[in-house]
């Protein structure tokens, strides 16, 4: 199973993401944003957290228009898996692969803490390792994680079981407590919390492990 981790100027969770994927059994290649193509045979593209291009203009906006993102959009449209975490989620909304947008936190402060998440669906490669309704703790670290979409979009996401995670105690003002959402084909996941930071015993919390294990297990047997 082959994974690519995209690296933008300002990415800072790229290495953690690569380690989590590697330790879960993936063969990982880090890909620079100026590359116009993904490595051959990639099953999963991971867009890591950070502050791509200094968050200039809007978080993720410039990254979403970089050469590699055209290839990521093609990969997703061809049915490939894409995981966007934190800044990666912002990039995915900016590319249009996921609906909505991430606004400034309602309290205007940068928030860095472990938060409670409810797994809303186990019906995806990313969440099949959890029981629907399970509560897990995953760290967040963001200034712009306030998920916004119009009423119709929120209703569609909920109706189609595309909300992957919600906050148990909404830290940032996200509509419908949304922390992570899936694409229509359930293969693109964007989430603000960082599962790669709750991966090893040394992190003090391994609740993120099952996301990687479940996904890579599924892609390896597929």
């Amino acid at each position, binding site marked *: 199973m082959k994974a690519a981790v995209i690296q933008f100027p300002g990415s800072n969770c790229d290495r953690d993401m690569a380690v989590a994927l590697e330790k879960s059994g993936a063969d990982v290649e880090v890909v620079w944003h100026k590359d116009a193509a993904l490595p051959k045979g990639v099953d999963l593209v991971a867009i890591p957290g950070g502050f791509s291009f200094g968050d200039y203009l809007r978080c993720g906006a410039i990254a979403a228009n970089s050469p590699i993102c055209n290839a990521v959009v093609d990969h997703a449209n061809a049915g490939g898996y894409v995981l966007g975490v934190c800044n990666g989620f912002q990039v995915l909304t900016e590319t249009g692969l996921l609906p909505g947008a991430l*606004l400034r936190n309602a309290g205007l402060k940068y928030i860095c803490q472990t938060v409670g998440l409810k797994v809303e669906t186990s019906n995806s490669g990313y969440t099949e390792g959890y029981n629907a309704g399970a509560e897990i703790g995953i760290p967040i670290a963001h200034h712009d994680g306030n998920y*916004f979409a119009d009423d119709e979009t929120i209703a569609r996401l909920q109706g189609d079981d595309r909300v992957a995670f919600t906050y148990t105690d909404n830290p940032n*003002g996200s509509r419908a407590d949304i922390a992570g959402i899936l694409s229509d084909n359930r293969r693109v996941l964007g989430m603000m919390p960082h599962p790669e930071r709750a991966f090893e015993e040394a992190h003090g919390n391994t609740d993120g492990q099952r996301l990687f294990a479940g996904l890579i297990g599924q892609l390896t047997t597929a």
Partner: protein
Amino acid sequence: MKARVHVMLKNGVLDPQGAAVKHALGAMGFEGVNGVRQGKVIELELADGTTEAQIGEMCEKLLANTVIESYTIETV
């Protein structure tokens, strides 16, 4: 030629920064500030003959996120 693009959060999209500015103005003793919305202005220096349609495409593709923002173009 120059163009000025004004980008604003759409009505109905919560603007926590504008709300904080409104609160600060009230705390400073300015009365009657009933609402504050914060946006941004982007100035473009353009080759002569750049059309409004081309500037519109720049707005749609990069300068504004039309999920949450609206924009107006002013050529100067």
